[in-house]
């Protein structure tokens, strides 16, 4: 369907249509909306990691002058245990309600308990201090090993592990056990001549978006309510909030503001339902903004994990067996992405015998949320470290070993289907042939290679393209623009009609003026919303041809469309798009095209990264001196934004590998809830991040597109991790490789 072909507009790095607003500060993000009569909401949060709430009295807070409303869990109508699609898989409504406002029990440091709305933010804060609350402090569990041990304190008395052969009779902190298998793992290891195995640890890490969660809401007595919020999916916000508050979808309008980063962390709700309750009770619009401390403590970071992986191969390099056991922290409520870790970890390899066991474990930490390819970075870290160890043991080049075992079209995956056409081999070859790979390393330097796989998703997207009498138009779509996708929508809309992209203005509709669209995440936007845009553009062209046909008194089949012009095949006449629009009022009304789809056939994106580091043996400090991110985009609609996704994912992964971790006290209190001590990469930490865009088209998309947003965060953990191992000559098992840890490894080996 889409081999390498010539495009007129696709493939250029155009200036994004929302660019002017973004560089001037005019763009409006979640905290930027003020409404007349607006009041401010603040939340009282648990000072304990695990405690029963023995008593709660809000009367003194309510009596403070300026306080207009107070909300607790009892303000939710009784919610039943139904699954809700909130962007990260199934999360029971009960769990969501209890996470948004605690019921009876607090389960992590920072867990929301009571919300207060007052005339100023300062008064609301004062009111929090007047809330009388008595806790019975319980022992927290802070690690999967602790949580899974016999006799561990239990977070939920009604949690019985799902997925065990026998239904258990005692409650547990293990929510689910999963198993994926293929072939015969014992036979696979029997056939192996070399075996590598290791245990690994990755820490809790936050998506680190610079914009805290924020919303401004208004609940109206006639039931017409509005939420303005920073979110990756406003239809999901509507669904979750409506379910939590027992509202009809049609009575709740959600407007997606511009969003200052999400990476999966803004695919669920925290403030919005609470703000709406406060607005209902006070009769005023309510604004709620999280501060940075709250973002770290009480939103949804990515899971900490403990994994064990074992790989067996023949001396000739063919891998015969891959096995893993992955235990992921879900935080306070079930639902870590351990399943996706199990499904992706071994998928870069064509190996007949695989077995993975996964555990979803609750601990007294914030409930995890999706973080860019959720579950995959942690699992792939373990696998790629071992593939590199295997290469050393076999005396093989690490790229060459991967090429020998690489997944390709037709490779059977552990999770079921065979892969269709994919670009891992092309990425590996690009890595092998890159300038980076030819560079020699200096003393104290090391190099790591790593691969990664992500499925990418399709799903529902709706678009209309509304044409104006002067031949300009508006593309109304429903995917909040996190990374510049509007520019790609413009090009995809312009390609078939063959008019300048700048004539078509893309806007993100709200839940009332655009049809249903699934959230921006899963690397779906350029793929699925793009497909809907293309379909809407085809619809516009079809209608243009129809109008031209009626003006010329011929049939639509006798009209062709090329270069922005309708051509009468039965005669000489031509009509430009602008001319057809100018007379549209007389030929049936202004033209509007639509595409409403549930996109199928999302193509996976494989990535391969190369990392060179320099280690200061006296301090343990690691510097990344050279980095190349190679990834299959299928077809890069906007090459600079595709590069940007590769670079952004790489740097988040570098941060996760080198310095990012949640640090807890023994009592389970989060000690580094700020950017000073939760150390994300800054500009002076990094070199330029080189990128290579590989294009192996996805035949299920008209232009060959594969999503690219997520795969780029998967390889860096092992690319960096193994580079350090290579530099210091000591096996690496735990992240992050902060200076004290690296220094300890070096000292320990002397």
């Amino acid at each position, binding site marked *: 369907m889409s081999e390498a072909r010539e495009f007129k507009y696709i493939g250029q790095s155009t200036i994004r249509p929302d660019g002017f607003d*973004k560089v*001037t500060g005019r763009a409006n993000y979640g905290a930027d909306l*003020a409404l007349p009569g607006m009041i401010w909401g603040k939340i009282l949060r648990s000072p304990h990691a695990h405690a029963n709430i023995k008593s709660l009295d809000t009367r003194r807070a309510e009596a403070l002058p300026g306080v207009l409303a107070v909300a607790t869990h009892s303000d939710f109508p009784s919610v039943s245990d139904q699954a809700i699609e909130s962007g990260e898989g199934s999360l029971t409504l009960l769990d969501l309600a209890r996470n948004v406002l605690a019921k009876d029990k607090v389960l992590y440091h920072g867990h929301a308990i009571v919300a207060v709305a007052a005339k100023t933010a300062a008064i609301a804060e004062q009111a929090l201090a007047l809330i009388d609350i008595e806790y019975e402090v319980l022992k927290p569990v802070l690690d999967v090993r602790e949580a899974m041990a016999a006799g561990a304190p239990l977070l939920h008395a009604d949690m019985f592990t799902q997925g065990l052969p026998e239904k258990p009779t005692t409650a547990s902190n293990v929510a689910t056990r999963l198993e994926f298998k293929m072939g015969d793992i014992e036979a696979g290891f029997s056939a192996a001549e070399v075996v590598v195995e290791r245990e690994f640890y990755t820490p809790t890490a936050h998506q680190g978006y*610079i914009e805290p969660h924020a919303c401004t809401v208004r609940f109206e007595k006639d039931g017409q309510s509005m939420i303005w919020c920073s979110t990756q999916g406003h239809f999901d916000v509507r669904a979750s909030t409506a379910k939590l508050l027992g509202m009809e979808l049609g009575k709740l309008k959600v407007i997606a503001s511009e969003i200052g980063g999400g990476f999966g962390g803004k695919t669920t709700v925290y403030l919005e339902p609470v703000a709406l309750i406060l607005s209902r009770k006070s009769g005023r619009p309510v604004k709620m903004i999280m501060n*940075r401390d709250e973002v770290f403590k009480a939103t949804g970071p990515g899971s900490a994990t403990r994994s064990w992986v074992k790989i067996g191969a023949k001396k000739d390099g063919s891998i015969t067996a891959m096995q893993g056991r992955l235990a992921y922290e879900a935080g306070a409520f079930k639902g870590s992405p351990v399943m996706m870790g199990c499904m992706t970890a071994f998928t870069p390899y064509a190996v007949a015998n695989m077995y993975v066991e996964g555990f979803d474990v609750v601990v007294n930490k914030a409930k995890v949320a999706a973080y860019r390819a959720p579950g995959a970075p942690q699992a792939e870290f373990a696998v790629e470290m071992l593939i590199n160890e295997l290469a050393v043991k076999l005396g093989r080049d690490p790229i060459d070993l991967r090429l020998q075992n690489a997944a390709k079209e037709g490779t059977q995956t552990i999770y079921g289907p065979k892969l269709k056409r994919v670009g891992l081999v092309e990425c590996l070859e690009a890595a092998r042939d890159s300038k980076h790979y030819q560079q020699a390393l200096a003393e104290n330097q090391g190099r790591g290679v790593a691969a990664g796989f992500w499925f990418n998703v399709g799903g529902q997207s709706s678009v209309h393209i509304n044409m104006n009498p002067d031949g300009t138009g508006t593309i109304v779509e429903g995917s909040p623009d996190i990374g510049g996708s509007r520019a790609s929508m413009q090009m995809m809309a312009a390609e078939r009609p063959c008019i300048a992209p700048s004539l078509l203005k893309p806007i993100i509709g709200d839940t009332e003026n655009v049809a249903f669209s699934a959230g921006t995440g899963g690397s779906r936007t350029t793929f699925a919303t793009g497909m809907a845009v293309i379909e809407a553009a085809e619809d516009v062209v079809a209608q243009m041809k129809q109008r031209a046909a009626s003006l010329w008194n011929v049939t639509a089949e006798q009209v062709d469309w090329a270069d922005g012009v309708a051509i009468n095949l039965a005669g000489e006449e031509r009509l430009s798009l602008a001319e057809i629009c100018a007379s549209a009022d007389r030929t049936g009304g202004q033209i509007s095209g639509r595409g409403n789809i549930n996109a199928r056939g999302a193509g996976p994106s494989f990535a391969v990264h190369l990392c060179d580091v320099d280690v200061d043996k006296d301090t343990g400090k690691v510097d990344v001196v050279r980095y190349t991110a190679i990834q299959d985009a299928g077809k890069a609609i906007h090459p600079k934004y595709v590069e940007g996704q590769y670079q952004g994912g790489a740097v988040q992964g570098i941060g996760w590998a080198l310095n990012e971790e949640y640090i807890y006290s023994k009592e389970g209190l989060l000690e580094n809830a700020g*950017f000073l001590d939760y150390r994300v990469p800054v500009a002076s930490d*990094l070199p330029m991040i080189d990128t290579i865009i590989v294009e192996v088209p996805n035949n299920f998309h008209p232009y060959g597109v594969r999503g690219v947003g997520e795969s780029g965060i998967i390889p860096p953990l092992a690319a960096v991790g193994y580079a350090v191992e290579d530099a210091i000559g000591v096996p690496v098992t735990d992240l992050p490789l902060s200076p004290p840890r690296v220094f300890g490894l070096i000292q320990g080996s002397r």
Partner: protein
Amino acid sequence: MAKIHITTSINGEATEFLCEPHETLLDVLRNDLQMTGTKEGCGSGDCGACSVTVDGRLTCACLVLGVEAAGREIGTIEGIGSSDKLSIIQEKFLEHAALQCGICTPGLVVSAQALIEQNPNPTEAEARYFLAGNLCRCTGYDKIIRAVLDAAATMRGAA
């Protein structure tokens, strides 16, 4: 406590406002003056999203009290470029795709302008260290640094 009356100058325009003593300059700009171009990312001076200039000095607005603006010249993102023409730095950010979500962009534009004013010919390392106080989570900084170095070169050429 009664609000305090402050007279100041913002982007060259005489301005007055009332604020509580505890309010930061960031609170004043965003909530009292509806100048939401300056963003709050952390409230503790660690992310640079609220970068402004106070008497020409690059500062985090969250670390300055509103009352400290009295008698001073405040420079914000709203004062960069004019209503019909972007500054060279702003143009280069767009050309190089040096923004994805854009939340850090106003702070970076203000900081980059301060950098180039102080050091019209920065090396890559100088640019990276000067801008280390502006966090970006989306881009990995690569295209930002390219945009800033290109802007500096263009401004040297144009000068």
